C-alpha cells in the first residue's frame, strides 16, 4: 500500500468538512449575489430617474432643456412651487434630484448673460450608487451647454468654426507601457487596470493565509487531540507525514482559490453587467497589452502556488509550536505580517515611487512576488517575475527542509509555546 496516499486521503478527509466548505460556499454565493444586486442597482439608477423641475421661466429654451433632460434617462416631474424647500419631498420618495430654472432663463441665454441653473441633490442615503444620478445630470447639463454654445457661436459669428472656438487647443492623451504606445486616456487605463487587478491581492491574501491556517491547524489538532505521537510512532517516514499535510492543504487552498476567483469574477461581472472592458478603449488596451490573457492567469497562478508552498512550509514549522488550536492565530502573526506588507503596498501605494529601502524589504518577502505578478506582467518586467519565482522556490525548499528536520527530530514531540505561561511571566516581571 502507498502510505503517502493513505496519509494524503486522511488529511483531505479531515480538511474537507462542512465546517470548511460552508463558509466557502456562502462567500461565493454572497459575492455573486452582491455583484448582481449592485449591478442592477447601478443600472436602475441609470434608467429613467425622476427629477423635479421648477420651471420659473416657461420659455422655449426652458422647454428645450427639459426635453433634453427627458431624453437622457430622466423623467421630468414639473412642479410649480416657488422654491425646492416648499416641495413636499416626502411625497416623492424616489426623487433624488431637483432642478430650478430661474425666470428669464431663455432671455439670458439669447442675450449671452449666462443664467444660473440650480441643481439639488436630495440625499436619501450615502451609498456610491446614489451618486450615479447627480453625475448623469451634470453630464446632461454639460452636453446641453455645449450644444447651446455651438448654436450661439454659429448665430453670433457666422462662417466661423464653433468647435474650434469652444476648444481652441485640442489635446490627445497617449499612454506608454514598456515599448508599446497607444492613444487612450490614462484615467481609463488606471480604472481598467484597477478593475482587473484589485481582486488579485485580496485573493492572494485570503488564499495564502487560508492555506497556512489549515496546515498549522492540522498540526495543532494532532497535538491537541494527542494523535501526533501515535502517528509519529508508525512505520511511515516523517517526510511523508510533512508532505501529505502540505499537499492536502495546498490542494484544498488551490481549489478554494479557484472558487474564490470565480466568485469574485462573478461579483465583478455583476457590477459591470458582464462588460469588463469599455468598448471604445478596447483596441488601445489590447495594443498596450493590458488585457489579461490566459497565459497571464497561469503565471499569476504559478506565483500564487509558490507563495502558498512557502507559506505552508512556514506554517508547518509555526504549527509545531502550537499547544492547541487556540494558539494558532497568535503563532501565525509573523506570517500574517509578511503577507500584510506586500498586500498593503501593492493595493494602496504606488510601487514605482517607493523608496529603495522599501523596495528591498518587499523584494525580500517571498510573498510579494505573487502580489506584484500582475503589475509586472502589465509592465512587461518578465525578469522580475522569473527571479521572483526562483527566489520563492529556494525559500520554499529551505523551509521545507527545516520542517522535515524538525519533524524528524524528537523536538516535535515536546515543542510548544505556552502563551499563558508567557503572559504570567510578563505580569510577574511588571
Amino acid at each position: 500500500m502507498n502510505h503517502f496516499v493513505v496519509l494524503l486521503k486522511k488529511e483531505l478527509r479531515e480538511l474537507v468538512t462542512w465546517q470548511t466548505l460552508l463558509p466557502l460556499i456562502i462567500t461565493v454565493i454572497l459575492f455573486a449575489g452582491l455583484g448582481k444586486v449592485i449591478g442592477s442597482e447601478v443600472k436602475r439608477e441609470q434608467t429613467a430617474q425622476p427629477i423635479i423641475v421648477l420651471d420659473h421661466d416657461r420659455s422655449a429654451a426652458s422647454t428645450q432643456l427639459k426635453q433634453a433632460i427627458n431624453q437622457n434617462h430622466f423623467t421630468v416631474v414639473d412642479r410649480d412651487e416657488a422654491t425646492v424647500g416648499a416641495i413636499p419631498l416626502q411625497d416623492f420618495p424616489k426623487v433624488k434630484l431637483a432642478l430650478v430654472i430661474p425666470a428669464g432663463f431663455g432671455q439670458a441665454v439669447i442675450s449671452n448673460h449666462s443664467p444660473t441653473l440650480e441643481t439639488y441633490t436630495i440625499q436619501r442615503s450615502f451609498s456610491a450608487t446614489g451618486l450615479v444620478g447627480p453625475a448623469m445630470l451634470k453630464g446632461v447639463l454639460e452636453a446641453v451647454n455645449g450644444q447651446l454654445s455651438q448654436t450661439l457661436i454659429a448665430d453670433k459669428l457666422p462662417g466661423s468654426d464653433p468647435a474650434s472656438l469652444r476648444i481652441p487647443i485640442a489635446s490627445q492623451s497617449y499612454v506608454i507601457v514598456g515599448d508599446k504606445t497607444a492613444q487612450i486616456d490614462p484615467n481609463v487605463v488606471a480604472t481598467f487596470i484597477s478593475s482587473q487587478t484589485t481582486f488579485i491581492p485580496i485573493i492572494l491574501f485570503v488564499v495564502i493565509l487560508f492555506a497556512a491556517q489549515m496546515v498549522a491547524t492540522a498540526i495543532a489538532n494532532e497535538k491537541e487531540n494527542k494523535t501526533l505521537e501515535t502517528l509519529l510512532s508508525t512505520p511511515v517516514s516523517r517526510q511523508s507525514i510533512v508532505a501529505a499535510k502540505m499537499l492536502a492543504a495546498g490542494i484544498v487552498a488551490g481549489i478554494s482559490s479557484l472558487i474564490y476567483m470565480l466568485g469574485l469574477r462573478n461579483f465583478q461581472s455583476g457590477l459591470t453587467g458582464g462588460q469588463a472592458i469599455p468598448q471604445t478603449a478596447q483596441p488601445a488596451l489590447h495594443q498596450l497589452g493590458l488585457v489579461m490573457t490566459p497565459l497571464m492567469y497561469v503565471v499569476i497562478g504559478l506565483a500564487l502556488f509558490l507563495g502558498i508552498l512557502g507559506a505552508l512550509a512556514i506554517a508547518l514549522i509555526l504549527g509545531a509550536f502550537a499547544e492547541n488550536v487556540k494558539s494558532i492565530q497568535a503563532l501565525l502573526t509573523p506570517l500574517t505580517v509578511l503577507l500584510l506588507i506586500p498586500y498593503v503596498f501593492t493595493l494602496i501605494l504606488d510601487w514605482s515611487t517607493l523608496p529603495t529601502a522599501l523596495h528591498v524589504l518587499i523584494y525580500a518577502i517571498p510573498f510579494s512576488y505573487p502580489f506584484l505578478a500582475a503589475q509586472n506582467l502589465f509592465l512587461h518586467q518578465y525578469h522580475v517575475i522569473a527571479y521572483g519565482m526562483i527566489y520563492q522556490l529556494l525559500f520554499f525548499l529551505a523551509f521545507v527542509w527545516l520542517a522535515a528536520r524538525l519533524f524528524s527530530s524528537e523536538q516535535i514531540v515536546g515543542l510548544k509555546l505556552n502563551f499563558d505561561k508567557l503572559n504570567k511571566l510578563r505580569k510577574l516581571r511588571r
Partner: protein
Amino acid sequence: MDSILTVARLKKDYGQLHAVRGISFAVQPGEILALIGPNGAGKSTTLKMVATLLTPTGGEITLAGTDAICHPDLARRALAYLPEEAGAYKNLTGLQYLQFMAGLYADSVNQAVEYVERATSVASLGARLRTKVGTYSKGMTRKLLLARTMMTRPQLAILDEPTSGLDVLNALDIRQTIRALTKDGAGVLLSSHNMLEIEFLADRVAIIDQGKIHETGTTAELKKKYHANNLEEVFAKVAA
C-alpha cells in the same frame, strides 16, 4: 528465548536534568513488564524512547533484533505505541480511523482489510464504529485505540497508562484485552499508577524512581522480598 526488547544502560538528559539514568531491562515474548513509579520518575520518557519518539542520550535499545536507535524506521514496524491520554481523529468515524491506521502498517490492501477486521473484533464497538470518534466516550476511544494497537499483532506493545481515567468496567475490559494480546506472543511494556492493575496484569514489575530502576521481579517475588501484602506496600518501602 530471545527477548523482544532489550534495554541497556539507557539514559536521557534534558540539559541539566537527568530524566533517565542508565536503566536496563528486557521484555520476553508473551510477557507483560510494568514500569511503576511516581510522577516524574522517568516512566513516560522511557516508553517514548522505546517507541522511537525520543532519542536517548546514551545506552542501547534492541527491538525484535533491530537497533532501535540507529534504525528507528525498522523498529517502528515491530511496535505499537499507545500514549497516555491519546486520542483519535474526531472528524473520522471509528472505522475510518482503523482503516487509516491499518493503511500505514499494511503492505497490501488485503493485509489492511485483515488488520481492520481484527481491530473491529477487538474494539467490540458494534454500530458505533460507523459514527464519528468525536462522539465517543473516553472508554470507547480507549477501546478503539487499544484495538488499533493490537490490529497489526505487534511484537511489542507499549502502553502508557492504558486505563487512566476509565471507569471500573471499561478498565476491566481493557485489561482483559491487554492480557489477550500476549497470547499471540506479543510482549507488552506498560506504565501505570494503578498498583491493583499492575498486580492483575504484569508478569514482572520494574520499580523506577528518579530515573533509576530500583527493583525488578514478579509481584510475588517483590512482596516476599519486602514482606509486603501488596504491591503498594512494596512500592512504598522501595521508595522510602
